[in-house]
């Protein structure tokens, strides 16, 4: 038996060995599992919470996944607002406005450390009014997902502690804000 004639047996050997590894090695640990395209889609469409299987955390750890995710988010967005030139700070609490939505902030008159974020959608779709509005924010601290409640009179609001990273991201003029469809 000379090895040169063994192409087929060799191929069977290799395929069996590699299949054994591929089918047996999975430790079903969340840490080691790669983020697949499905995870990006489900997350972008608001069907999975970002904490599920640490997906959002994994996306934020990889520049490539972050870029892919933002591309998807834009593709399925209602409105995309890129980084702003205007400076803003926690003192002035400058809002953000496009043709399709407006974001404004107001400090609670009593509890000064709490800030209301009011989101107005000018031409909402039916989901916005029944399920709420999903907002993706791509800021300096990575991507965050924020879910607002259903719109009433085209408006919905959330209350944040000033130190909340989600609030920081919404206020940050450098952040891109995507309102999902």
């Amino acid at each position: 038996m000379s090895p040169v004639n063994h192409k087929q047996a060799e191929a069977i050997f290799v395929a069996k060995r590699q299949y054994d590894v591929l089918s047996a090695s999975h430790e079903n640990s969340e840490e080691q599992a790669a983020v697949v395209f499905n995870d990006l889609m489900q997350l972008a469409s608001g069907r999975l919470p970002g904490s599920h299987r640490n997906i959002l955390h994994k996306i934020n750890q990889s520049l490539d996944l972050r870029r892919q995710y933002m591309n998807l988010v834009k593709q399925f967005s209602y409105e995309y607002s890129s980084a702003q030139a205007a400076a803003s700070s926690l003192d002035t609490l400058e809002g953000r406005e496009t043709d399709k939505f407006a974001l404004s902030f107001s400090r609670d008159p009593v509890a000064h450390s709490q800030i209301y974020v009011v989101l107005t959608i000018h031409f909402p779709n039916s989901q916005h009014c029944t399920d709420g509005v999903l907002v993706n924010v791509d800021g300096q601290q990575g991507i965050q997902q924020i879910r607002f409640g259903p719109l009433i009179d085209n408006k919905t609001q959330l209350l944040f502690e000033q130190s909340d990273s989600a609030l920081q991201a919404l206020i940050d003029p450098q952040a891109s804000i995507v309102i999902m469809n």
Partner: protein
Amino acid sequence: MVSTVGYGVSETLLSMFDGLRQTTISTSEPQREIKRKFLCADIDRLAQYICCRNYGFLCRELCFLCWAIVRACSDKQFNAPLFTYFWLTDVATAAGLRRAFANPWQGDQDQVYLQEGALHIQVGQTSFVISSSRAGVLAGLMEFIASVDNTQVQHITDTVSKGGSGDIDILSKALQKCLYDFLKHHLPEANEQSRYRYVTDWLNRNEQAPEDINDDDILLFWQQANDDPAPAKPSHVRFETAVDDVLNTLQALALLRIQKASQRAFSQGLDDDLGEVDLSRVMAEPEGSQGEDSLGEFVHGALFTHIPAPAQPNLLTLTPKCLTKSQAKRMQPIVKHTVHLGRFCQSLLRLQVFGQWQAVLSQAKRKSAASLKEKMASPPDNGYDGYQQEMIACADSLAFSRQCLLYALLPHEPERVLGELIGTLPPLDENAQQKLALQVKGTNTPQQKKTLVETLARDWPALQDALNKLASAYKANNKEGFKTLPNAYVTDAYLEALSEVSKLQGIVQNHLKALKSLGEITPQDSKFHADVSIFTARFNQLYGEIHVASES
């Protein structure tokens, strides 16, 4: 640099398959439940296509499916039918595919329609049929391609939107190339080929025919491979690697022989000397005429087609949890070498007992010389009998899990569960059988089925007993997936687990039978003590004090 630690499979590819297996989707309104997207069996099937490098036809099938989706599945919300089909609906099942294509579509010369559970696609002059049972593996392939290179999704959309069958062919080639380029780095063959060659060279040198190899030869191979000073030889330090290499080589040679023999039988009618196919003559046939594609098809056919799908113990560590991780790991070697359970029982036994000890030693060596010395002084204490007890415990776990699975499935799949149970009960007399058949005949609705189970149990005490046993087993089970009864939406996972449990029960039983008859031939005690001295000597040489000293 791509790292391929495990037998020529890259870390990236491994974690992608982990990701595929864990992929979850959330259902549309109103349930909003999160469940696993793919059946484990479908991901395994995808792995088979990929490992055999037989994904040409699969890519073509996917292209036709996409062509049909873009036309026949409308998507008013996003106007992106491919995205919606593959990622926003529960489509990785046959039922999902049938739902998506419920409405037929008709173009000028083209059409898409469902008939008898298969999707018929007519693109100009070309017709193509996709069985709905392919839904899972095709969705898996799409997921895999999109995760390898997500720009492909847009490329596929653009091409199939405009294209006829010619474009489909070009697209299918492009997808194949995309996979090929990825696998070139993440699933390289060269190292593994050298392992095969090393074993066949060894067989040649010792003038051994593959049919004559026995357990002691495998031990000898491991010893000699470790004494072999050749610098470029593949490593066989682990006993497990040596066993894997020899058994896989023998299996490959045997499969090749069977394939060739059956091809010959096909081409020449019934061949008189079918039973005496000369291996060397068969092997020497020129193979240059075969392209890469048909080689992949050949390999896939030899390893996976027409035989039951390989068992997957790891699946049973997910929800519903039937085995502990360590039990699943313990079963891995016997699952891997199912075809050799009888002939190489002794080698598998050695592998299970001394392979585990070796793993402990190599861990200890990394820690400290003292720890190594301590571990070296304590060989596996319970010997071969201890292992047999361990396997019996595994068999018990499987039997227990089976009862719990049946109980969980009873409300959703009463026929299936009754079928399983009735087979185990003492047979009924003829009258009772007829009565039973009549009762079963009239039941169609879920409510009727539920009542049927109740009536049957009332009239048939043995069945009632069996049902009671299931219930008390379930009650005693506190593992993941058995705390509250599952709803109809997740029964797939229970059905899949049940079929996996059945497969493993068969394998474990065969293994135990082989162990028992092995024990009858030679007393396991003396065999074990002889093996201890062989393995201790070799392990001392591989890990022992001299070795530690020279390395530090």
